[in-house]
């Protein structure tokens, strides 16, 4: 009985925890030059970012309600905070800056629209 209760609790935690809506692989549509940007959000709250299947960005994130906060290996370890806007039945998303002192990243993130890779 105890095991069942723990399992149920774990299931409901996973179901309702913020990170769950994000975990998995997301990719942009090809840009004019054909580049595809993607991110894999993992269950351990880390992520890997890539362009054209070339990984290079790595970091940790939290998602509380719709606020996505992260640090990565660029931008001298400065954190960025963005509101995630899900749309199209939550299989697409974009980022709205809340605070990010890394200007290049802020510009890139603001343009980024990704869909869940199914």
């Amino acid at each position, binding site marked *: 009985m105890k095991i069942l209760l723990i399992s149920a609790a774990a299931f409901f935690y996973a179901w309702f925890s913020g990170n769950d809506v994000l975990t998995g692989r997301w990719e942009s549509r090809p840009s004019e030059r054909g580049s595809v940007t993607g991110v894999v959000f993992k269950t351990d709250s880390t992520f890997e970012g890539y362009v*054209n299947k070339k990984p290079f960005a790595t970091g940790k994130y939290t998602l509380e309600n719709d606020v996505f906060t992260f640090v990565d290996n660029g931008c*001298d370890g400065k954190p960025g905070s963005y509101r995630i806007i899900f749309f199209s039945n939550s299989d697409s998303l974009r980022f709205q800056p809340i605070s990010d002192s890394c200007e290049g990243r802020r510009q890139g993130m603001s343009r980024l629209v990704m869909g869940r890779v199914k």
Partner: protein
Amino acid sequence: MKRYALLAITGCVLVFVTQASSSREGPANKAALGEMLFSDPILSRTRTISCASCHKPAFAFADTSAVSTGVEGRTGVRNTPSAMNLSLQRTFFWDGRAKSLEEQALAPIRNPDEMDLPIEEAVRRLKEDSKYNSYFRNIFNSEPDSTNLAAAIAAFERTLETSNSPFDNWKFSDDPRAVSDAVKRGFTLFNEKGKCVKCHFGADFTANEFRNIGLFNGRDFNDSGRAVISGNKEETGKFKTPGLRNIALTAPYMHNGMLRDLREVIDFYNEPGKFVRNAVGRDSILLQPLGLTEDEKKDLEAFLLSLTDKRFEQQSGAAAQ
């Protein structure tokens, strides 16, 4: 009589089919034509060297010389950069003097220390070559000219992308067994203590910037680099940060090819002042020694080796160290 008529008709059909198929022979598209041109010495004045003479496929389209060797053994002053993984780059050459791959593609042809052939002469040769004339007409609907020559070579170069290294398998395919623990530690050093990521951040491990790493002192190291192009004195001694994909194959290193191997590169960044005395304008990132230990240097090197694409695995033996 009937038999002769049949033979004659068959003969005509054969001739027609042969001619029609021969006119379709040759490269299927711009990139395939570019690949032919890339390896053809027709584009050098002496018809002895091609783009591939310096951008050797086996060395990730770079070579093993400190500086490029052109026609009649003429030597340039800079190391041959890899022609791979250029699609995402915004400027080309060590000093960034070309703003597109098309612009880049023609420069070595006309450079007196490289292929030494005026572009007008290159185009004339291609027009006079019935094979190339036909290929250009098939692909571009026009005879060879400088624009479609550049377009073909650039299209070929855009195909030279690699994204299947052990590092890629680890990070993109989420396979932690694709690399050793040394590679993983090396990647952490790359991002933290080694500070490498400050300049080598991006899909090809370059932020596409120009940096002065301390290889200019105005005496024995006097290549002004970017400043000559921009006219900005502040950029003296700055060079484009190269990408690091397949870096294990492209020794020697730096714009002047002064460092023999990756270990020497790591030693340099650990303490640049030991290599070039009285450097002028060295980037602030490199003002203090990194203080890497012997084990850390090995880990960093293991990470760099893990960036070698698997297409080169057999020849380099560098993968998954």
